[in-house]
């Protein structure tokens, strides 16, 4: 597969933040996920759990709870505000002070006409959902103590509220509390501590299920207010509950990192009466608190303090073992956009790392030595942090870019875009902010420089792209490129061709628009493929365009402006990709090219990088896919017969970026999961046998 000098970069100490809340929209099959830093991520569950959108966080915003109403997403947090999100512009649409102190939870009724929030001051406030806004309607009876959790009865007439030491059931039309369910405290030392009812679920047969800080999952009769059954599940807290759609199963997430399933099962097989809630399976995929849970049709989705999102498919819902029935762990908020986290200035050997609060510019190390494959070369010059640029304002950075010459740097938040001029001579670096920016450039979802650094492209609202001309002294608005389709979805990928003629932009509607930069107009739309593109690139010399989709399909086009696939790509589609390739569970995040060999495309996902050599035969289903080790053991004569187009290297793990520099050296940016785990707070103490 060729020999490369590899820069193994491990100094990017990016730390994802903990998952706080989750809401699943069964209608659109989108999962909204809120993290501790106030960012919201949207995953598309129909498209291989692809992370479509990220709404960047804000310092003052904290999200305690998320809620879908139709296609609208609401959040509430301890800052006491309710916010609705603009999913097309990836920013909060508006936020509303609820005047009830910190808000612990927000829910909507099944009809989608009302929202209810639980406040610190003991009130449950109802809001009416209007076309473009929400409006305060009334308070239910005020209680002593905070309202931690809420659950609306499917009929909409009752609300169950989890509080300290008790659960209240409210009659919604009158606003009065009709039931008071007292929750026992824990045993022993925790007797003096109040029990927090972290989560309640109101089922359609008026059963209330509660999970509390004493480690109990309790089943109550909501009509009579009596306790039906107590399951002592853990010594610690039960933090989250989720009910399946058919109400035959409830899952509970605990502080121990376990997810425990309860099923509504009849004691005997043939008569289906007298069902009861029985504890069945236990899943342990987390090391820390499970703060957010969602039971969807075929899987249990959980997330928590240990920052990763786990999709645990329920195997009984699958007919056969397939790609979808495997366990998924999503460790990083996908670094989907080609350079959301790092920009690799190819000529200058600079790396730009993006954190929510700052940018870091690094220069790669250098070495003159040569060695055998696998050797570590001594460094002549150590990697060096050149620059640390803190953002201004409260909003987190949503995208950034570094021009390939290393002379320009740009970043954008929800509210502003900043462009800097970088000058490096030997060891001195100077940075100057470009002061006058065109008015049209107020925020961008994606930033990109042209290969000659003369233009900058900023993805703006409604899939439009602003073209900014950069000169030494100023930057000037040139044009707005608009798609014809009228799609309102944000652009998440942009790439330019090496000759500066073409710009390709992909949006969440799976469309890829190709613009002619000389004529400054839309040239064509690449044939729409059913899965969202996760990475794309245009070859710097041949203009060969390669697009990789979330379902792992690889398509190539001879040139962006030709609306058809290459022969190789057709052959690949005809023969189909190898199952091993299709079964990988992380999407390809970068596509780069070997400028020396037009046949080679370098792709990578989190666990491997792959060089596709289009001159070699395609593997069929019977050939061994990962064959690098076998090849090494074969003699020179036998080797060619075993070669196939996909050459995969798994030496580097937890990859964030693989890129080829102009001097044929490979930059590999790793972020070891172990390093992330070691930075997490200590998990709850558990007595393990024989310790």
């Amino acid at each position, binding site marked *: 597969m060729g020999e490369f000098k590899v820069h193994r970069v491990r100094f990017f100490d990016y730390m994802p933040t903990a998952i706080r809340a989750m809401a699943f929209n069964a209608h659109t099959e989108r999962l909204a996920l809120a993290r501790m830093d106030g960012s919201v991520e949207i995953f598309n569950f129909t498209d291989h759990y692809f992370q479509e959108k990220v709404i960047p966080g804000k310092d003052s915003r904290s999200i305690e709870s998320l809620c879908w109403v139709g296609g609208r997403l609401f959040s509430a947090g301890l800052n006491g505000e309710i916010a609705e999100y603009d999913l097309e512009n990836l920013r909060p649409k508006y936020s509303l002070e609820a005047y009830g102190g910190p808000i612990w939870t927000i829910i909507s009724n099944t009809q989608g006409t009302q929202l209810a929030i639980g406040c610190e001051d003991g009130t449950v406030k109802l809001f009416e959902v209007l076309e473009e806004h929400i409006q305060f309607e009334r308070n239910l009876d005020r209680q002593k103590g905070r309202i931690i959790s809420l659950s609306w009865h499917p009929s909409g007439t009752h609300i169950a509220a989890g509080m300290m030491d008790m659960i209240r059931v409210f009659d919604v039309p009158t606003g009065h509390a009709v039931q008071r369910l007292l929750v026992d405290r824990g045993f022993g030392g925790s007797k003096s501590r109040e029990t927090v009812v972290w989560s309640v679920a109101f089922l359609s047969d008026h059963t209330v299920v509660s999970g509390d800080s004493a480690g109990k999952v309790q089943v109550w009769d909501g009509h009579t207010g009596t306790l039906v*059954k*107590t*399951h*002592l*599940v853990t010594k610690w807290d039960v933090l989250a509950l989720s009910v399946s759609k058919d109400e035959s199963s409830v899952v509970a997430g605990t502080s121990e990192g376990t997810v425990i*399933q309860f*099923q509504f*099962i009849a*004691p*005997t*097989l043939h008569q289906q009466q007298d069902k009861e809630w*029985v*504890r*069945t*399976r*236990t899943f342990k995929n987390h090391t820390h608190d499970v703060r957010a849970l969602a039971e969807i049709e075929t899987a249990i989705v959980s997330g928590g303090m240990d920052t990763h999102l786990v999709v645990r498919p329920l*195997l*009984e*819902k699958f*007919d056969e073992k397939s790609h979808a029935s495997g366990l998924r762990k999503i460790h990083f908020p996908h670094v989907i956009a080609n350079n959301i986290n790092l920009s690799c200035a190819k000529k200058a050997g600079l790396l730009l790392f993006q954190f929510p609060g700052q940018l870091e510019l690094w220069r790669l190390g250098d070495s003159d030595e040569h060695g055998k494959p696998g050797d570590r070369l001594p460094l002549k010059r150590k990697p060096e942090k050149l620059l640390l640029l803190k953002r201004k304002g409260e909003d987190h950075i949503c995208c950034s870019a570094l021009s390939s010459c290393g002379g320009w740097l740009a970043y954008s938040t929800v509210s502003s875009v900043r462009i800097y001029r970088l000058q490096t001579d030997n060891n001195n670096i100077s940075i100057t902010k470009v002061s006058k920016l065109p008015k049209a450039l107020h925020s961008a979802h994606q930033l990109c420089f042209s290969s000659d650094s003369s233009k900058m492209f900023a993805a703006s609202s409604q899939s439009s792209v602003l073209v900014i001309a950069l000169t030494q002294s100023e930057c000037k608005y040139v044009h707005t490129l608009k798609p014809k389709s009228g799609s309102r979805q944000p652009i998440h990928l942009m790439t330019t061709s090496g000759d500066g003629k073409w710009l390709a932009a992909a949006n969440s509607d799976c469309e890829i628009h190709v613009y002619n930069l000389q004529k400054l107009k839309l040239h064509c739309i690449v044939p729409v493929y059913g899965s969202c593109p996760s990475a794309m690139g245009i070859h710097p010399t041949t203009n060969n365009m390669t697009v990789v989709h979330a379902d792992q399909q690889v398509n190539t086009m001879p040139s962006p402006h030709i609306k058809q696939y290459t022969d190789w790509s057709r052959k690949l589609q005809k023969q189909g990709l190898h199952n091993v390739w299709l079964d990988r569970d992380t999407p390809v995040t970068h596509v780069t090219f070997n400028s020396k060999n037009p046949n080679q495309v370098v792709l990578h996902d989190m666990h491997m990088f792959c060089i596709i050599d289009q001159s070699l035969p395609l593997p069929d289903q019977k050939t061994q896919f990962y064959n690098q080790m076998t090849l090494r053991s074969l003699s020179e004569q036998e080797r060619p017969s075993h070669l196939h187009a996909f050459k995969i290297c798994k030496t580097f793990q937890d990859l964030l970026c693989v890129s080829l520099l102009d001097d044929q050296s490979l930059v590999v940016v790793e972020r070891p999961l172990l390093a992330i785990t070691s930075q997490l707070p200590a998990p709850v103490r558990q007595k393990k*046998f*024989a310790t």
Partner: protein
Amino acid sequence: MVEHAEIRMVHRGGSKINFREPVITNDSRFLLCAAGESVNVYSTSTEEYVHDLQGHTGLVTGVVLNPSNHLQVYSCSADGTVRLWDFTDAILIKTFIIGYPIYSIYVSEKHGGVVFLVVPMANYKSSELFQLVAVHLPHSGDQEVEARELSAVLCDVSPHAGAASFGREGEYIAAVRGLQLEVFFFKKQKSYRFSLKSGKKKGAKNAFTCISCHPKEDCIATGHEDGKIRMWRNFNQKKEYTYSTLHWHHGAVNTLCFTPEGTNLLSGGIESVLVHWHYTQENQKDFLPRLGAAITHIAVSPDGSLFSTSHSDNKITIIQSCVKVSAVIQGLVKGDGVWTNLIIDPRSKALVLNGKPGHLQFYSLHRDKQLYNLDIVQQEYIHEEGLDQFEVVKAAFDARGDWLATVEERRKKGAELEINLKLWAYDELTQSFVLNTTVTAPHEDQITAMFFSPSPETTMLVTTSLDGHFKAWLLADHSDANEGFWACDFVGGYHLLKPGCCSFSADGSLLSVGFQEVVTVWSPASWELLTTLSQPPGAIRDLCFGRLSCSKYLLGASTKNQLCCWNLLTCSLEWSTPMDVSLLQTDPLSENMAAFCSQSGSSDLFVFKPSEPRPLYSQKALCTGKVQHAVFAPRDQMLESCEERTQWLNRSQLYFFTQHMDLLTFSTKTEEDRLLASSKQLMVDDSVAVTPFYLLLGKHRGQQLEKQEALTNPMAERTQLPQGSIAIKELLHTPAHVLPSASFLCAMFVRSLLISSSSAREEKEHEEGEMEREEEDSEGEADPRLGESAAWGPPEEFGAPALTKAQERELRKVKTFDHSWLSSLLDC
């Protein structure tokens, strides 16, 4: 072996009672368990052995209560038969011949007349594949019935008991094997299979070990190798089945059992803790710890009041009301191995050998009962595999049984050997051994042999060790202290050779020590090396002095297949014969010697006198494998057999352990006859289980009680209900199989409860004294009827003999009564 027909090899006690799950009878009075080739019946309240059900000719592999008659049990055996017993009277009712070796048996109330057996797959006779078959037991009057109609239910099942279980009301049967659970529904004739991943990658061992079905709900509990218990539900669906996991055991779950109401689940494993799981609240569990050894089976009485746990040390514990150990039935403990030889305690005549880990057990051969355990190591035993712990490796008694010497050692890989020599004095007061002296590291290497000097004057102990020395230990007398302690008296060696064995002559005047090829003879009085004898090649393995008339001979068995006999007077080899002697044993009461030879995989026995060239008795192919342990146990009563072949068994009996740890002995015909005569049919009373002890005392006391009651409460006699009458009692106690059909008896029974009109009239007229006579009458009335029904003669016979007055009245009564019961009888 026609010529030795009068000498038979028999299992005499010590059989495994923990082999299969025991059965507790419906009234919780008896516990039945498979023990070797018979089924033993024990009393649950007194833990006493009541009797056994003998008849099987192979290992009994399962005992279950007959679901349609709770006074009967089925037992199955490797001999290919299922037998139906009346266990209260130990009567074999029926034998069903299946024709295949049977490995376990399952029955269900719903499947009357059908037993489910695990037999080897017919076409894979040699391989280890088993199937579960249903066998319809034919109705037939014969004692022996062939039942060859087998219908396979499940293929490829595990032969272990506890690997299958009937579900709620017998609707389905669930079986586990390896990583697979299979549930077969009888109604739908459909089976569902669920398999687990081996889980080896994640460090789990998911293989199933046992199963139990909830009696009232559709829930299956399975035990697993890594100590988990899974509760399966919804298992009539291919996909939507579900299970929850309980985990407490750290080792494999050996056995699981639901209580009859299904409120509790009991589990046990190597931890020797009985765990009660509350069925609905899985987090709550109770423990009954310190049960002594790993639990292998759990059984619950049908009313749920008694639990019994079988343990790996051949013990059955009976537990009352979940918390209290009420009785312990202890068999001969067969641990991981016997390192001490078999020894006879001269005082109690008990067999002494390794028992529980770190203990010596005293086992009465005559009563087939463990007398007691002596803790030698006196350290906590940790129930975990793979630990090196102290083990008793040698033990010896002196001639009178006053002293016991034990050697314990702990082998650690890569570390030094730890050896302790302990000497125990017999304490008359406590009737047990008390530790007198502990010698840590008596030798630098393993001790190979240890004997007390048999001479009555001195108490001397000799130990030989691989460190090249033998040491003599003497009881040092201290005038100031009333108790002496043991100290080393002499250390001997011979050319730095390693001594392997030693032996004292019968009077203790000579000690011979075998130093590899050389036998040295020492005088213990002066520690002078008297002579050396040698017959190379081959190291000496066993040494024995002759006894009584043959005391001038010394016998040695060498590793190179030679048995040599030296004459000590001439110091020359008297004779030698090529034999691969694995064990040489002398009878302490006669000149006889027994030599076990291993030849081509099996063992031969020769009994001979050193002075005579011809063996007294020889038996080829005694058993498979090497015999490692044997002992002559003196008889408590001498036999008077003058036949030459059996003479050697007159004074003592030879016991030996086979490779599979079966305790075998030889018995003669006369002995068996005597045994048979002594075991006469015992009367059964319904209040207390019949044990020999009860027969001695209980009956006597019962009579006394009756008398007292009669004195204090004369009214009791009069208000006696008809149920109490002897006739009915007898009717209820006659074995069911000799009674006529129930429909016939029913009418009669009901009649006996009625007060006839005539007697009612009389009752009014007569005084109370008359009533007694009336009752006697009614008894008299029942008697001939019973006799008649048993003989099943025609009713016309009634009138034939000359009638007494009472009978005349009786006859009149009969005539006035409705005879429809009779006609109905004749109809059918």
